[in-house]
């Protein structure tokens, strides 16, 4: 009996190995939210960050000339804009003082370079060039000049994995800027995000800007995310669903800022 069992094991060892490895992979999948696993992942990413360097070096080289030209143009444009903005800023300061408003725009931002855009077929993470030594911790907002990018998930010593908004587990508390309706935004597909369960009484218009609500512990208020493409009635017929086009094209993002609070 025992010998028969052993010979059975030997005959089917390839299949048993498949079951064993698949079971481990499943177990790891189920442990995704365990903080220790996240921390380990951050450390692995940090250790192996060097494999991204050739890609970064080649990318930087090829983009240098183009970037130089673009920066020159930006410099001229910004110089002109700066003079105008200074005027507006001073006016704004005066008005703020008059209205005794607290200045809420002083976020402490840490600039970071995007080192890679992930290896998996689905683009749902980026690795940035700052980490624990720079003061980054898990669950910090990551933003760009044009809007929300995501949040820090696994923090290594000098690099950090960022969960970006195209990850299907990403959620963001948002409000529609004009109609003041609140909702939870999540990724849909085809470069579109959605906000579901909007009351049918709410009037939301296409092209309306969507910004962070400020109700989250992670994301400060009023950071833009995107604009409304269209509104549809939900499949149940009881709510509306808003389809949002993000302002940021994640395929082209090169820099980001971590909000250090």
């Amino acid at each position: 009996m025992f010998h028969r069992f052993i010979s059975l094991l030997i005959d089917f060892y390839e299949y048993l190995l498949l079951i064993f490895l698949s079971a481990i992979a499943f177990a790891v999948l189920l442990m995704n939210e365990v903080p220790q696993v996240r921390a380990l992942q951050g450390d692995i990413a940090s250790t192996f960050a060097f494999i991204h360097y050739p890609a970064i070096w080649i990318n930087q080289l090829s983009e240098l000339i183009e970037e130089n030209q673009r920066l020159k143009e930006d410099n001229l444009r910004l110089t002109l804009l700066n003079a105008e903005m200074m005027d507006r800023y001073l006016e704004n300061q005066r008005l703020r003082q008059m209205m005794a408003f607290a200045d809420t725009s002083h976020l402490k931002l840490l600039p970071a370079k995007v080192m890679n855009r992930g290896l998996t077929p689905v683009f749902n993470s980026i690795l940035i060039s700052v980490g624990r030594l720079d003061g980054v911790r898990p669950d910090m907002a990551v933003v760009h000049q044009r809007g929300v990018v995501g949040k820090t998930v696994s923090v290594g010593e000098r690099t950090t994995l960022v969960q970006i908004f195209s990850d299907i587990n990403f959620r963001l508390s948002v409000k529609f800027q004009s109609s003041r309706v609140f909702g939870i935004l999540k990724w849909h597909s085809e470069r579109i995000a959605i906000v579901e369960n909007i009351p049918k009484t709410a009037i939301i218009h296409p092209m309306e800007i969507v910004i962070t609500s400020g109700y989250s512990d992670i994301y400060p208020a009023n950071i833009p995310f995107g604009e409304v493409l269209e509104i549809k009635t939900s499949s149940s017929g009881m709510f509306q669903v808003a389809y949002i086009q993000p302002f940021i094209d994640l395929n082209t993002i090169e820099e980001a800022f971590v909000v250090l609070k």
Partner: protein
Amino acid sequence: MRKLLLLLTIAAITLLLQLLPGSWMTIVDIRPDFVLLGVMLVGRFYGKVWGQCYGFTVGLLVDALGMGSFLGLSALTKTIAGFGAGFLKNQRHRISPFSYHVVSLAILFIHFFVYYFINFRGVEIALQVNLLRYMTPATGYTMILYLLVDYLLPSDLS
């Protein structure tokens, strides 16, 4: 020892390819999976055991280096792909080219089917859309490269 060195070299080359041309060759969010090509080749040359062990290891590394929500997903799908590719060991000249390539295509498709199916769980995206928009294009894109690599490489490493 020689075999391990070869596997490490394949892993290093495919990871670098995934990082450089892999990101440049992205077409409407679909990119070829060079790491999967490596898994297919290892399975084809060394059989089911090596194929699935290599697939599991390199898949886990890809997950750890990438991110986040689905740590273990690439390990799972690449283990299956490595196991499947093991069936092709020494079969290139034994079975008809049509059957050989249909099996290769089926393995790639199963890999992407499982990958995208789990990745898009809980998302309001119909399976048909998922099939047409993600699974089939990713399979086709990777298959084209696999055909090329498979044609260029010898049928047996020994």
